[in-house]
């Protein structure tokens, strides 16, 4: 894993040989060069947990360089801020207040560098799905996903759903290569350089929170948020899974997630479950909590509540 082994463009012979070598040794079909430049360091990169601090540092540097090259920028930062002891994140969402305006959905896409899709709107990767629910029912099958009228509509209430950061996460259990796990502060993350793209986690998730990069993500350079985290909003690759990380790049610095701060209604509340003065604890103490699909036994870190 020395820095010198990185393949330079134009080093055709060596590159062809290495491709052949890796294809033979790993029995793999390497992606063609015109789809994604082959990078031996990236190919051989270890699991996040197996890297030493020094290897982590060099990996982050390499990624910053790769992203700067790829998106023709010079301001990428990729950090790997760790969890703070004594912090366990939790999210609460006020079902009485949410009006379904979808500002969280779009703030999330911009903050987290999601695939923008081919059209200008709509067909992007979105971590949050806002459900328009019928008053008097919690039946998700009656929910409308693609409403486009003024909100809130009569006789409707709104329920945004995103990753619940379960403490007994079915997705984490499902992954055959431990590419996804729950951090000590409760955030369920994906190592985009380790995921093999089998999508078993997506099948396992009861909240439909996992989104797959079916194609090379389209991310216009001028729409990029260059302040990224290794386990969070750094640009993703074709063929890997991604998901909400509570904006790990923000919350590990002490900031609120983007969806929280953009919400015009104050429906979204975020904080440290272990701090008894936190808003989350006050909500649990004073409000009635609803846990979506509690019967599935996922023990989520995401609570709905009512006024």
């Amino acid at each position, binding site marked *: 894993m020395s820095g010198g082994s990185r393949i330079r463009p134009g080093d055709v012979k060596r590159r062809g040989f290495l491709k052949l070598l*890796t294809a033979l040794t*790993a*029995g*793999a*079909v*390497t*992606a*063609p060069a*015109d*789809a994604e430049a082959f990078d031996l360091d990236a*190919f051989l990169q270890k*699991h996040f947990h*197996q890297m030493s601090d020094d290897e982590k540092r060099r990996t982050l540097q390499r990624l910053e360089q790769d992203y700067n090259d790829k998106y023709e920028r010079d301001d990428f930062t990729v950090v790997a801020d760790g969890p703070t002891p004594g912090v366990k994140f939790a999210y609460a969402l006020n079902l009485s207040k949410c009006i379904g305006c979808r500002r969280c959905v779009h703030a999330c896409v911009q903050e987290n560098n999601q695939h923008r899709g081919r059209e200008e709107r709509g067909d992007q990767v979105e971590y949050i*799905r806002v*459900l328009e629910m019928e008053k008097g029912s919690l*039946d*998700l*099958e*009656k*929910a409308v*996903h693609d409403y486009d009228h003024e909100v809130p509509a009569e006789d409707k209430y709104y329920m945004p*759903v995103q990753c619940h950061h379960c403490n007994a996460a*079915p997705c984490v*259990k*499902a*992954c*055959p*290569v*431990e*590419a996804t796990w729950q951090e000590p502060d409760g955030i369920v993350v994906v190592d985009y350089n*380790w*995921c*093999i*793209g*089998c*999508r*078993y986690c*997506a*099948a*396992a*998730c*009861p*909240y*439909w929170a*996992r*989104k*797959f*990069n*079916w*194609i*090379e993500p389209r991310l216009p350079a001028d729409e990029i948020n260059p302040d990224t985290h290794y386990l969070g909003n750094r640009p993703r*690759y*074709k*063929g*890997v*899974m991604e998901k909400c990380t509570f904006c790990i790049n923000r919350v590990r610095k002490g900031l609120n997630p983007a969806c929280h701060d953009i919400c015009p209604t104050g429906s979204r509340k975020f904080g440290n479950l272990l701090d008894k003065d936190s808003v989350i604890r006050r909500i649990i103490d004073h409000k009635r909590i609803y846990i979506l*699909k509690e019967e*599935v*036994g*996922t023990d989520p870190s995401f609570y709905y509540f009512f006024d």
Partner: protein
Amino acid sequence: MAATYVSYFGFVIKSVRGMFTGGPRYYAWLSFLVLLMAAGAAAYYRQAVLGLGVTGMTDQVSWGLYIANFTFLVGVAAAAVMMVIPGYLYHDKAVKGGVLLGEMVAIGAILMCLLFVMADLGRPDRMWHMIPPFGKFNFPVSMLAWDVLVLNGYLLLNLHVPGYLLYKRYRGEEPAKWLYLPFVYISIVWAISIHTVTAFLYTGLAGRPFWNAAILAPRFIASAFCAGPAFIVLVLEIVRGWTRFPMGDRLITFLRQVVLIAGLINIFLLISEIFTEFYAASAHVASARYLFFGLHGHDALVPWIWTSISLNVLALLALVSRRFEQRGLVVRNLPLAMLIVAIWIEKGMGLVFPGFIPTPLGEIVEYLPSANEVVVSAGIWGLGLFVMTVLIKHAVDIETGAVAKNN
């Protein structure tokens, strides 16, 4: 020692030569399969370049034709055990004679399983992440890790046992029991396990009520022991019709009985499932309702599942009546072919796809495989059938003495 290697090398050379020696029809069949493989390879290249977006899969229906085929073929692979048990445990000579062919079918099927999983991966270049100690293998927590383990183990078992037996036969020697019998016994349990683990892949997901039912594993086994032996019977009929492979009626009659009994159990389990879903009519019934009757105007799978059920019932009636057993090749085997198609539909359109519809958030997005996806699948089938064909040809060569050490 060196002589052993030389002998083995000769075995391999002669075997391969034998595999690719045959009549015009044999070559035509192999050429057809090569054609399929070539088309599949081209389509797979396109998928590798552009990503899995060239398939019909979406975030809503995130598994499709590949995993459906995989699930079906695990059943076919497991079916060899239906010959191994009477052959080796109860020393039924007639059945034992055909076990080798069943095991060759299993090898081809397992190979297809592994290739279908490969084709379904977004990052096949990272396959090594599964292999310890370089990778991280999430065993024993992930059911997919279990599946990888049992499938590869089953492949090895099925390569070893017939490989050893054929080699000994080639040399005209008696095989040493301790070198293969233990593996035969292991493979009996192992065969059941591959399909059970594959079923657990689905039943273990509490967030997918359509799959999260204890009846799924028994149904998998029942349908596997219906479609698998049916597939083997078709193979045996071809071998019997076109080669001098020694085979009596007893073997095929036995397998047809297995098909019938397993098929009836499968139908019984299906009825139990349908009753529980629709009589209780809890919120969990949505997927089943979508599958059998359509939901909110979405009914893409309805014709498929009723076709499957019709084929199933008609074929089983035909088998029960026993009226077609003595008829011509096509007529007597038609019910078996119908069962294979019915259960293939049942695994894909009847199990994998509706599990995703509606999504956990109640959204209904239908799935239809793309042309690219179909061609890749056809290519994998081509490769699997190719391997199956040459291996069966090999077994026939050895068993009939066409390939032996001394000729």
